[in-house]
């Protein structure tokens, strides 16, 4: 049976080094299978976060040969096996141990985004009527499995570490899902501009490229939100109107 060498990052809190492990490769295998095999055979304490192994929970995010990917959905036959396969933790978040990073920042960011606010129910029994075509756009955003690969690849977070000023593509998608939700009457445009830093995104579309759910993050979520911000704050007529009607805005 064929074997492959894995060059896995081992260490704690950002300190560590690559270590090579050789393991057998069988038909249809994914990188997470190999990591589990290495764990069972050579490195019992190897830290790796995973859950469903079916691309549905978004736990096993890592950088495989330098590309942000889900380990459970990366098949070995898509990688060149004549050289070692490198597996590293995500870079945009604080390192914990081996392949595991501290993603708690994402949970804090989500809490800052004003929550869903539905309009009054349409029917007397407290239910709503929504046309089938009106759910589709937002359903795309709601496919997100929160793997945070888009956050990992975003240069605003990864290279410039602007975690305080910018919420990242995942949460722009989340905000878009709320803003475009057919029942939602909330308004997050001011926050998007001032607190969430939407202007920092310069639409390089790296996030769209790495999304394992194929969400068109930049075109369908971020650009329409940017347009809302522009319409509100940079349209000359409405700006004049705002200055006269509410000087504080």
């Amino acid at each position, binding site marked *: 049976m064929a074997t492959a060498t894995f060059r896995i990052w081992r260490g*704690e809190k950002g300190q560590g080094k690559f270590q090579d492990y050789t393991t057998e490769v*069988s*038909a*249809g*295998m*994914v990188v997470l*299978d190999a990591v589990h095999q290495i*764990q*069972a055979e050579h490195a*019992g*304490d*190897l*830290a*790796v*976060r*995973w*859950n*469903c*192994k*079916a*691309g*549905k*929970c*978004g*736990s096993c995010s890592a950088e495989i040969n330098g590309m942000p990917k889900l380990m459970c*959905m990366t*098949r070995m036959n898509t990688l060149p096996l004549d050289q070692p396969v490198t597996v590293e933790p995500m870079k945009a978040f604080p390192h*914990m*141990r*081996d392949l*595991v990073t*501290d*993603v*708690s920042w994402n*949970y804090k960011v*989500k*809490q800052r985004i004003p*929550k*869903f606010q*539905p309009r009054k129910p349409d029917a007397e029994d*407290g*239910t*709503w*009527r*929504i*046309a*089938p075509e009106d*759910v589709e756009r*937002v*359903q795309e955003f*709601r*496919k997100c*499995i*929160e793997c945070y690969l888009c956050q990992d690849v975003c240069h605003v977070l990864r290279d410039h570490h602007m975690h305080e000023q910018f919420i990242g593509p995942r949460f722009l998608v989340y905000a878009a899902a*709320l803003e475009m*939700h*057919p*029942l*939602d009457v909330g308004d997050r445009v001011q926050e998007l501009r001032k607190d969430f830093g939407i202007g920092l995104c310069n639409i390089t579309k790296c996030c769209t490229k790495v999304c394992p759910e194929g969400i068109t993050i930049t075109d369908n979520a971020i650009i329409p939100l940017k347009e809302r911000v522009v319409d509100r704050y940079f349209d000359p007529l409405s700006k004049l109107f705002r200055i006269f009607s509410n000087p504080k805005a």
Partner: protein
Amino acid sequence: MAEYITHEHDVVIIGAGGAGLSAAVQASAAGARVAVVTKSLLGKAHTVMAEGGIAAAMANVDDRDSWRVHFADTMRGGQYLNNWRMAELHAREAPARVRELEAWGALFDRTKDGRILQRNFGGHRYPRLAHVGDRTGLEMIRTLQDHGIHLGLDVFMEYTIVALLKDGNRIAGAFGYDRERGRFHLFRAKAVVLATGGIGRAFKITSNSWEYTGDGHALAYDAGASLMDMEFVQFHPTGMIWPPSVRGILVTEGVRGEGGVLRNRNGERFMFKDIPPLYVNQTADSEEEGWRYTQGDKNAKRPPELLTRDHVARCIRREVREGRGSPHGGVFLDIAWIKERISNHTEHIKKKLPSMYHQFKHLADIDITQEPMEVGPTTHYMMGGVRVDADSQMSDVPGLFAAGECAAGLHGANRLGGNSLSDLLVFGQRAGEYAAKFAKENPLGAIDTEKLASTEKWALQPFGRTSSENPYTVQHQLQDTMQDLVGIVRQEQEMLQAIERIRELRLASEAVSVDGNREYNAGWHTALDLHNLLTVSEIVTRAALERQESRGAHFRDDFPAKEEQFGKFNILARKGPSGAVQLTREPIPAMREDLQQIIEEMK
């Protein structure tokens, strides 16, 4: 003396899937200070993998549906071993719970007139499953999560509970460790809700994630609560079987609900050959009628592919055993055939079953719009669990509640597809409500510090050992044992072998050693999970030996018939004074007359 960090709450919820989050939301709404303790990150629990939908008799698609029909379907599916009061509450309350999710932001697929769309599923008489394509579980958990984070819950992510604490007879809290640092934590609480899910990781081929190690079952059992119906493990008929690394991953019943058919290697629709007497009146007479049913013809009866999961799983096993299986030891599930009926079938399939399309394309190089899938049974769901009061979800231990998969009662001998997500919502909420009530009426219990010290000592033992026993090896051996000896078709001799094997593996588990330190150490976590896996495996096997008949998900080769006298009781398991499993036969209480009447009417 144990070293630990102390937390204090009114209600501690163990598990953050659909049931745990529903309980948390409700307990918090009732004014309780709530902690949610979860083995994974928030929003990653096994609920995300649920595909098909939430069963709720809203009658949006077929106005003949009502809670009464749903009740009767659930009881029939469970072969009347269900707790009928739970089945009643579930059928009555599920529609309100679905509407609540919508009010919190869930976006279900719609009917043409803009209401929540409902789809057909096995064992449900009418289209009943509210759904979002084939990712309903993700929608549900995300909605509960996004609603819950604004309620002031204290969420402890990546924490594992290893023991429940009692003050005399009642619950006093829980004790566990955090994965990141390996520190111990004491959670003092007036009430504890178990919402830990199932036991699928006791088997080799399973659709379940790593978390499903029977934690709630074992914690409750060790704390003196009764477990019930533990012989009933559901094997979902359609899991992926090829390539080997994806073996067990679920293929939603929704494929069959949308018109997918099962064929053997000869191209035969073998499900038509064997239709159980309870379902003859509800099953299509021809392939033509079955197709019409899946396309919404209200006068058509459902195709035999949509019979209950236990039956379909056994039929698949029979085809394979008798040499009519597919190349990799399963059968064919074909949705591509609908091109004969639908002009834009490729788009149609991608729209209705997006994750299935993606899953097969990506993991198996199969385009399900063009070619059949290969499928076979996979361990999917545990009907058995903590015995609870139907209304409050409280166990035999005062202050200890259980909801969702780790509780027993609603599903009896076999669960219908779609009844799990609704179970989580209905009884998660009830558990949260009654746990908050219990917390209001009772003070904090005293903590048994000796128990903390002994638990901590036990948990750290694997680090001190020098044996070569590897926790992963013991886990794999247990999985092989349960798969081979206590699987879909059971018999006494094999199960007695399993008992012996489990005894040996228990000894091995007490000798495992682990390397490294306490920080995020997967080997250590696996070593500690073994206790729960072994405990539930033994109880499943003993209960399966005790039930000398075949009913629902439990099939005995040596007792292939259903026996009337075995339909009169549930099997309870408790930890005896010597530590051995004690089984008792608990008579099923007589059903309320109005409910009996519903059953009669719906026959």
